[in-house]
């Protein structure tokens, strides 16, 4: 039987190495400099991360403060400043909204993806290590969830339980942990047959010790790649939910929500309001995808 993973990841490539420490995790990221695609991706992602951290310093105005509506990029602001990216239909500074919106997206994407990883990794380790009934049950649950088209699942969950930050995180965990589980499971199935795992078993280490300290660190290569890709998808998802009106509560900026609020104005001659957040979200996702691509390239070269 072939295991088809309906997530956009490459076939996992487990790397045989002795148990390693945090340093090793960082080393595999450091290898990035060997890939120019990965380096560009890293620069983009770091750039956005920096922007998020420094949001209070970068954003020139309060993102929810109405000033001059419909100002185009580079217009002069009434206080003598400049609306670098223009303002939206309510007169709020686009640059400030992009910056604060970016912070919000990055925080939620990171929290949601991390949470999905914790659930997915634990499930995957259990399924792959214990096998048997545990595996059957976990795999079946995963198959049920994965049988939903993702966006259909999100719409159903958010419309039922409401659009709050916490619900979005929970929905992402629910929808993407099965995919993570599958990858971890197949990696675990493979690594569990390695000598050092068998050695640990004969030493009498507990199952959880083996899973978390022997198997997991050795599965890191493909997982780091997958993590970067998933950060990209989660960013897309949060934007899509905002776009569909199921996103983070207004009026605080959220890129998807910004697009949907102003997209009809593109036709009215004010394309910047919707296109700038559209470009921002695409650029961030591109950063994650290039980073993942670079990491994969480096991993394959090993």
């Amino acid at each position, binding site marked *: 039987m072939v295991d088809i993973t309906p997530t956009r990841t490459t076939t996992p490539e487990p790397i045989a190495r002795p148990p390693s420490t945090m340093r090793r995790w960082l080393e595999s990221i450091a290898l990035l400099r060997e890939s120019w695609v990965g380096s560009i991706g890293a620069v983009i992602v770091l750039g956005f991360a920096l922007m998020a951290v420094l949001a209070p310093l970068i954003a020139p105005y309060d993102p*929810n403060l109405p000033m001059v509506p419909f100002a185009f990029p580079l217009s002069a602001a009434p206080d003598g400043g400049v609306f670098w990216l223009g303002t939206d*239909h309510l007169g709020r500074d686009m640059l400030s909204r992009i910056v604060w919106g970016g912070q919000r997206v990055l925080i939620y994407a990171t929290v949601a993806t991390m949470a999905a990883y914790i659930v997915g990794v634990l499930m995957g380790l259990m399924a792959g290590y214990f096998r048997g009934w545990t595996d059957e049950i976990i795999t079946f649950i995963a198959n049920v969830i994965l049988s939903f088209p993702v966006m259909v699942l999100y719409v159903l969950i958010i419309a039922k339980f*409401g659009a709050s930050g916490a619900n979005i995180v929970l929905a992402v965990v629910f929808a993407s942990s099965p995919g993570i589980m599958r990858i971890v499971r197949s990696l675990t199935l493979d690594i569990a047959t390695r000598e050092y795992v068998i050695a640990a078993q004969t030493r009498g280490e507990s199952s959880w010790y083996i899973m978390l300290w022997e198997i997991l660190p050795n599965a890191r290569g493909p997982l780091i790649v997958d993590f970067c890709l998933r950060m990209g998808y989660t960013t897309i998802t949060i934007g899509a939910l905002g776009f569909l009106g*199921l996103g983070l509560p207004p*009026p605080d900026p959220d890129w998807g929500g910004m697009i949907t*609020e102003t997209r*009809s104005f593109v*036709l009215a001659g004010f394309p910047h309001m919707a296109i700038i957040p559209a470009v921002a979200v695409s650029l961030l996702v591109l950063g994650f995808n290039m980073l993942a691509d670079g990491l994969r390239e480096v991993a394959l070269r090993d």
Partner: protein
Amino acid sequence: MAKKNVLNRDKRKYLLPMERKWGAETHCYLPELTDQLDRSRIDRRDFLRQACLLGMTSAAAYATADVLLGRPLGSVARAAETPKPGGTLRVSMAVQEMTDPATFDWTEKSNVARFIVEYLTRTRADNTTVPYLAERWEAGEDLKTWVFHLRKGIKWSNGDDFTAADVAHNMARWLDPATGSSNLGLFDAMVEEYDTGEKGADGKPKMAKRAIGNAIEVIDDNTIKFNLRKAALAIPENFYNYPAAIVHRSFGKDTPADLSKHPIGTGPFDLAEFRVGERAILKKARKWWAGDFHLDEIHYFDHGQDTNAWVAAIISNQVDTLYRLPVESVETIKRIPTLDVLTTTTAQTAVARFRVTEKPFDNVNLRRAVLACMDHNELASKGFNNLGVPAQNDHVCPIHPDYADDMPKPKRDIELAKKLLKDAGYENGVKLTISNGDTDGPWMTSTLSVLKAQCAPAGIDVTINKMPSAQYWENWTKAPWGYTSWTHRPLGTMVLSLAYRTGVPWNESAYSDPTFDKALDEAEAELDVNARKEKLKVCRQILRDAAVIPQPFWRQISKAASKKVIGLDVHPTLYHQFQNVWLDS
């Protein structure tokens, strides 16, 4: 009340010339009304509305007002270019099911049906009610009997004559609880409660509603009389409420109650195509009894729930007008040279009502503290894109005929708010949560953000609990503090009666005060315009003192239309009246 209705001999002077000139049957209260207008005790608008309700023809009412107020006769007539006949008006609006007009619960449904089936009366955009299928009407002195004279010579689309039997059939259907029409509540004065003889689960006798014995009296083919058990002034207005379209006498009796499948009407249009959720195509099929209907076809297109799609449709010239223009897009449309924005003030609003039985909102000082923080002008401008009209926390609107303008406007007073908060026992501030479903659009969140900022200096920390609108409507009467939208209603007394009377179904604030109920009863029973305003002031003051509803503003509503559409009005209830509309190429 009877005393006031006695005709004052002096006042006949106003009546006789008019009576002779216009040949109108006149209600005995009309001279009194005319006198009040003459002495400037009521204004032109109040006069017009009330006179029309009492059966004066609108031409006579306008003429009377013009004579007394010194305006030139005939100012009603619109100086306009000659309309060009023909053409298709394309409208973006939800196309919903259209089975039984009596059970319509959305205005959109009635707007499609409006060109097929018609109403006894018509309330114009200026709030006066004028004849339609009924040619004229008279009210008894005590307002307990109403005689409607139907226009002669109107034919149904199947060839039958339109007669009093049709009206009687409709009224009987509305008053039968089995039909499930909301008109039942509207014509409450013709309904009684009776003991069904059965006992409910709680052992109490089961009560049910039915029409009173002689409620409907057909006098002849063109005359019908309604007998009421209590006085009611708004009967003619009620006949234009959207579920009150008159259907053929066979409807729901000989044919199934489904207008989209059996569209027999008095209007000039036929339903050529009808696809729920997609489109409704109306085509002019016959001459209209009322004169020229310039348009040949009216096409309704459903662009879904997403307001962006509506705006995109009109910008890209896929439709000529919108059912409603979301307030967020008004500024944009104004910048497009081929489009017009039409705006009108309405009594649509939203109230941040407290549920006064829930902690901590059972504390009147806490409620008052929130009210004292509010700056209504800022809320109306920032919270509703400059299209709000500041409200006064009593749910009676300046456009209501029973609104008195001389009550003090609420003022922001942070020191007072702090003091009230202290009295309420929250010296160190308080955290409050308000539920909001953005049921009418994202502006609701904007408003609450402004409110939140206004409350902060007094030590009131407001959290906005945003939820999907469906979820809000599931619990709208239960949330301890919630922001609920209310639609336009023609009378102040009507709103207060629906929303704040003890125990009524829509009383979402659980407010209950016998003094208020009594004052409201008195206001409702008052026919004299000014006395009614005064009596309603009492109710409004009680409501304000009880601090039940922080009400930021009244909403102006807007429509967008292509500049080639001429003669389009914005009706405050968004009813579609296209008889004067024509298209300029």
